[in-house]
């Protein structure tokens, strides 16, 4: 991730260099916008990462595994969606966890809901989303994305 970040940063720095050649004034304006949005979001992001740390240590994958391992039906589907909504981490981490659950005999719709919800619903990133887009947007989008995750989970169970 650090290398990806470095690559992107390098590309952006080059882009700013080119844009500075075209119009120094507008380039400075871009820098100001970038600085402002960084300054506004950085404290929030620090907080989100601090919470991620707590979450990973105090709610390790084993807890999720215990909750999702055996049950099936509505409560399992709901647990899958809810655990996905509070889980944080890259999808790269969701797949192995989901795979081991499936292999252990977990109900496929609950696992599918878990993955979709993991990526598209974020309880911890909700404050960031509300700061950027407004609270109404954040609530509406996460609410509908959560329902969609459950529905997609159910349909995966029917098809796959």
């Amino acid at each position, binding site marked *: 991730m650090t290398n990806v970040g470095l690559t992107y940063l390098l590309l952006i720095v080059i882009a700013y260099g080119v844009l500075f050649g075209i119009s120094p004034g507008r380039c400075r304006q871009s820098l100001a916008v970038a600085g402002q949005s960084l300054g506004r979001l950085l*404290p929030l*992001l620090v*907080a989100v990462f601090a919470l991620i740390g707590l979450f990973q240590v105090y709610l390790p994958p084993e807890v999720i595994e215990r909750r999702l391992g055996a049950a099936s039906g509505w409560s399992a589907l709901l647990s899958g969606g809810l655990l996905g909504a509070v889980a944080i981490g890259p999808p790269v981490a969701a797949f192995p966890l989901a*795979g081991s659950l499936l292999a252990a005999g977990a109900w496929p719709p609950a696992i*599918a809901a878990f*993955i*979709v919800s993991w990526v598209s619903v974020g309880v911890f990133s909700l404050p960031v989303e509300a700061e950027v887009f407004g609270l109404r947007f954040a609530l509406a989008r996460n609410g509908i994305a959560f329902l969609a995750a459950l529905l997609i989970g159910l349909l995966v169970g029917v098809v796959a």
Partner: protein
Amino acid sequence: MMLRGTLWMLLRSQWLLLLAITLYGWAFSATPDRALEALKVAGNSFSSVLLLIVAVMGLVGVIQVWISRDLISRLLGRQGGFRAFFIAAACGTVLIGPAYIIFPLLMSIRAQGARWGVIVTVLAAYAVKIPMIPLEVQYLGWGFSLTRSLLTILFAIPIGLAVEAIMERPTADGGH
């Protein structure tokens, strides 16, 4: 009075940070070892994406100042029609990186004239990771992975339209 006002402002704008600090204070007093471990996890994951965050904010600055409103609203606004949604769904599936980095990027596109539905469709399609499908297949198998990805793409545009309808419904306080 002034002091109280300032405190209230601080509480309102930085409540999440204050919450995190409080939780850590509590964690350190209860189980110092695990709290320290949590802090290490937090520090490591933050430093691994910090450069990416700075780069994306740089991109936000470029979009807001250099990309013309006309172009964005023609492609991704109401004028873009249904094609705007297909572009959005396609972009969502190839985007990678944590969501909280994508938010400011999408907001800058929104500020330049993209419609709400397009923004939400990108975020919904974002649950499909084309660059990571091989990995998903490896852990979950072809049937499960492809079905999940296809259904997620199919749902992305309806989700976008639904949230857009909520955002554009007039409210009593007149806020959008």
